[in-house]
């Protein structure tokens, strides 16, 4: 049977309380069409486990969809210096945050992808990230083993017996229920091809129990299989396939379109308060029935100016600076 479905159908595969991870990096190649619909469908108590976060994460947090956030970073790069929604929810004690370093989060995903419970690393020793006082899931009493997605320890320290190089950190596997990935191409059966930087997509997709892939275009398997070395993921790892051009907007997509900086700046500036977020969400999420209507609201010229030049792989028409 075909895995093709609509954004709305794909979001139905997500349960309240699920542990979720995403494709992309900060403000690049995030599955925004899915994120908007998750908010529209009022998903709740989500547990985000992300190598790094960005606009999509701060948006889900602002919408009150997130109970636990485990990652290393959130913000909008130069279009918004922090995640104002996370900042607000943290101060209000309305969300549990668990900080790891970037490499530690990556290795947690690597462990999940490899089917081992942890990975060893030298990264970020000597920081408060490893301060037991700041084990927030532990403080919340959530490390009792009752939730299979929450390890019993935040980290462990282990001596190297092989070369006697000292004390390593072991970080626990990340095992999300679902990875929601936005990519450039997917075959009808599910072979995934990503252009440009792969970020931590391979690890995030393979760590997850279920994969929802949204692609700019669905293409023939035979076409992707002419160059197997350029493909990232085989069909049997993919549960759902959605075709949605511009589905990562306002984040950028290598070879497809630019980051919509003005959109991100507007989101950042307007959503520092809950009232502001609710107004913004009314305008851009609840005020439109679906992602197609959202794109119409943005309008052709705006989207066309973001469109990547096929040689450079990024837009040469989008105005980016003051000159």
């Amino acid at each position: 049977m075909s895995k093709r479905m609509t954004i709305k159908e794909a979001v139905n595969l997500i349960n309240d309380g699920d542990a979720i991870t995403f494709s992309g990096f900060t403000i690049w190649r995030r599955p925004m069409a899915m994120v908007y619909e998750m908010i529209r469908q009022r998903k709740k108590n989500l547990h985000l486990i992300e190598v790094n976060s960005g606009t999509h994460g701060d948006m889900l947090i602002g919408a009150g969809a997130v109970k636990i956030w485990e990652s290393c970073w959130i913000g909008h790069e130069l279009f918004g210096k922090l995640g104002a929604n996370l900042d607000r929810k943290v101060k209000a004690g309305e969300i549990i945050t668990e900080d790891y370093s970037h490499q530690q989060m990556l290795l947690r995903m690597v462990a999940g992808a490899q089917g081992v419970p942890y990975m060893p690393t030298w990264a970020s020793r000597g920081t408060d990230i490893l301060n037991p006082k700041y084990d927030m899931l532990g403080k919340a009493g959530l490390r009792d083993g009752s939730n299979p997605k929450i390890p019993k320890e935040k980290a462990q320290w282990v001596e190297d017996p092989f070369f006697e190089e000292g004390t390593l950190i072991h970080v626990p596997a990340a095992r999300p229920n679902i990875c929601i990935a936005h990519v450039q191409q997917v075959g009808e059966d599910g072979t995934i091809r990503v252009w440009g930087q792969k970020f931590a997509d391979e690890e995030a997709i393979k760590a997850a129990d279920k994969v929802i892939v949204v692609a700019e275009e669905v293409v023939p398997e035979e076409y992707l299989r002419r160059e197997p070395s350029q493909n990232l993921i085989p069909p049997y790892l993919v549960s759902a396939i959605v075709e949605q051009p511009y589905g990562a907007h306002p984040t950028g997509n290598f070879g497809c379109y630019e980051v919509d900086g003005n959109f991100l700046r507007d989101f950042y500036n307007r959503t520092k308060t809950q009232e502001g977020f609710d107004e913004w969400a009314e305008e851009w999420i609840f005020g439109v029935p679906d992602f197609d209507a959202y794109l119409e609201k943005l309008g052709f010229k705006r989207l066309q100016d973001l469109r990547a030049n096929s040689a450079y792989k990024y837009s040469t028409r989008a105005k980016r600076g003051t000159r």
Partner: protein
Amino acid sequence: MEKIYAKQGEYKVNDLLAVAAAREVTDGEVVFAGTGLPMLAMMLSQKTNAPNSFLIYEAGTIDGKSIHLPASVGDARCAYQASIGSGLYDVFSQLQRGHVDLAFLGGAEIDQYGNVNTTIIGDYTKPSVRFPGSGGNPDINSLARRTVFMMVQEKRRFKKNVDYITSPGWRIPKWPGGEIVSRQEAFGKKFRGGPSAVITNMAVFRFNEETGLMYLDTVHPGYTVEDVQNNVDFDLDVSRVSGQTEPPTLEELRLLYHEVDAEGIFLP
């Protein structure tokens, strides 16, 4: 070519930050650079003193030859004519393996030992501000041979002790115990170096690797040692000031404004 220095007023503070940082690169080095001024510094150095250095961006590009300034390390522009376009696992593994000589990083606040905080202000469990978080800052800073921090000079940002150690300096907790020890002791056989310079809008600071303490090295044109002391919230060692920071040359400014950031993204 003969060096013609720009006079005060002929350059902005960020220009000097980028230029001073660029001069920290030795030719042939492998360098990690973050978004913003670190990028400008590294791209400038590749056009001046370090044409054979290699630039790694955290998102997964190696030795890119961007002809348009990336807006972030995840930008498609980072991959232009790059040797490698991979992902985080590749570049972080190379970092841990010991291939990175130098890193340019930023921070919200720093302390006398070079510990940097980019996570929260106040008590971590009930902060007054939640910053973006560590990103790769502590990974890169703990695994590269040398780190140069680029920051804004403010009293509230130069503290005796930071509220939260996001990125490790020269005196750090050794886990699992948490006792504060030297970086050399905490990292043991895996010690490779550490924060070597902090460059702000007012001055350049360096570290005494034995005491682990920050000291003032050079002061930017137009500022005095006192100006700097007034913008540091700890007892700053000013006994080793080596003089004034070398100002940007006209050529460096031309490169910054006409080649590195021709679109005016970070240098409006």
